[in-house]
């Protein structure tokens, strides 16, 4: 664990004051004193901020009473954090097929991934003739941050100590503990990595480690390695908007960090809900993927191929 990570760990422990999840079983005397000091600060905040701490549990639309008035630009959870619970839509139409656009990549300044030559060559080769390798074609999970700008939007549940996100696409989810815990052992690699969150003021900061390096950053062949480390920042700017920023560090594939941005807007459709997405049982794409892109099926002329699949559905 690096010094910076240890510092974050200490902050995580401290910021647990005021949540129902808090336990002091494993805290050192020094951390207890930090907690006491932080607790005093929180006490001052509580006096200055009584409306939010006394807000109706569940906030807007809670059962058993009239809708609560939004307190300020957004409602807060019972532990005083921005309440991101709800359904959200991202700008998937821009970055999903190719992240190398000014709308998505804001650093480096040329809006391109700063690949080392061998990884740029790998991506170019995939795009030229081996798109069959696309993980989502095989119903494999998308990884982070790719997961954040998928089609169909997603749901956030933000409760004290935990933020959970669920997508209709592939039924994927991310469960982000915000309780000061440590990452899983580094030798474990997961499709969606291991996310751990903490609050920096009103911004949710999520560190994701342990990705398996088999996911792409989009559906367009931009590869990653298992050294990818992602820090995401979720900042609510009003009740219907979350500004999102992801910093990607990968010393193997990239020559410098990458910063990607997105804006999530609340889906305010009354009664909206996410449906089941049965990717594995419904997948017919894989067996029909053309040989010219590495798939098992013979290539067919465009006039025979176009629209045929949609008509059959």
């Amino acid at each position: 664990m690096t010094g910076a990570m240890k510092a974050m760990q200490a902050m995580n422990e401290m910021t647990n004051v005021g949540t129902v999840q808090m336990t002091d079983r494993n805290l050192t005397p020094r951390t207890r004193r930090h907690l006491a000091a932080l607790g005093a600060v929180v006490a001052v905040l509580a006096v200055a901020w009584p409306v939010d701490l006394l807000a109706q549990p569940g906030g807007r639309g809670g059962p058993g009473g009239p809708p609560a008035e939004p307190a300020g630009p957004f409602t807060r959870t019972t532990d005083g954090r921005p309440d991101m619970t709800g359904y959200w839509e991202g700008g998937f139409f821009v970055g999903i097929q190719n992240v190398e656009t000014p709308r998505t990549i804001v650093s480096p300044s040329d809006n391109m991934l700063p690949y080392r030559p061998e990884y740029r060559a790998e991506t170019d080769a995939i795009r030229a003739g081996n798109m069959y390798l696309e993980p989502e074609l095989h119903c494999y999970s998308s990884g982070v941050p790719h997961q954040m700008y998928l089609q169909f939007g997603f749901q956030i549940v933000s409760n004290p100590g935990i933020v959970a996100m669920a997508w209709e696409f592939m039924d994927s989810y991310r469960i982000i503990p915000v309780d000061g815990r440590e990452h899983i052992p580094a030798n474990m690699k997961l499709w969606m990595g291991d996310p751990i969150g903490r609050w920096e003021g009103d911004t949710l900061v999520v560190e994701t480690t342990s990705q398996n390096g088999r996911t792409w950053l989009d559906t367009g062949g931009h590869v990653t390695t298992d050294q990818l480390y992602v820090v995401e920042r979720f900042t609510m700017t009003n009740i219907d908007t979350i500004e999102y920023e992801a910093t990607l560090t990968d010393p193997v594939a990239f020559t410098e960090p990458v910063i990607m941005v997105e804006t999530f807007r609340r889906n305010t459709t009354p009664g909206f809900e996410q449906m089941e997405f049965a990717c594995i049982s419904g997948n017919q794409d894989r067996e029909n993927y053309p040989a010219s892109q590495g798939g098992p099926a013979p290539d067919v002329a465009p006039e025979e191929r176009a629209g045929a699949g949609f008509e059959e559905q």
Partner: protein
Amino acid sequence: MSNRGNRVPTTATIFAAVLLLTTALPAAAAQSGQIHGQPDLQGIWQAFGNTASDNIEPHIATQGVPASVGVVVSTEDGLIPYRPEALARRDENSANREELDRVNQCYKPGIPRLTYMPFPFQIVQTPGRVMMYFEWIHNTRTVNLDRDEHLEGMLFRNGDSIGRWDGDTLEVTVGNFLEDAWFDATGNWHGANAEIVERYTREGPDHMTYEVTVNDPEVYTEPWSMRMTLYRRVEDNFRLLEYECHYYRDQELELGIFAQ
């Protein structure tokens, strides 16, 4: 030393007072087991030891499968009250389970089977939804508390789940199944038209009673029910990981990519 000795209780006292001041509301909510004004079922849960995932009826042990008296509680013999032709179909399922079991194809297993497969799942609640996240191929269930009728004309492998609170019990009605589905790896089954009612009742910090009533007159002579205990995973630092069944299957069959 005496200074230090005096300071520690002072700090502790301040800490306790501050904690009371700042957390009175959430702490009270936690004690009464409430979140968003609902009974709090949040946590990571798992069925252990009842081998329901293998066979919900009473069975002696076989290679790799421990014995169990079963989880069917509504009949005296612990057996499912099948109609004769439905029982024959169960036996046929069992004989051809390798090929017919959707779980072997990594498809969604249906409800209630998903609940008691040997993998943990996590419950997280909002005012209008009870979310269930499963480690098994990241299946996600939304129990909708905001409507009381099934979606019209929409069918799902894991069904359509609508919930309500009956006192401290979460009662979930599941319908709109895409096709017949199995309860276990033995081929015990229900029809696509079955209506399944689940009841989740927390019995304390670490236990929950899970009851399921199955009504499918085409398949059974009467409605029947099963019951088991779900256990909360209390290990330090426990979390859901991944079980990507289809990826492992692709590797075995040398399908897909990354086959090694």
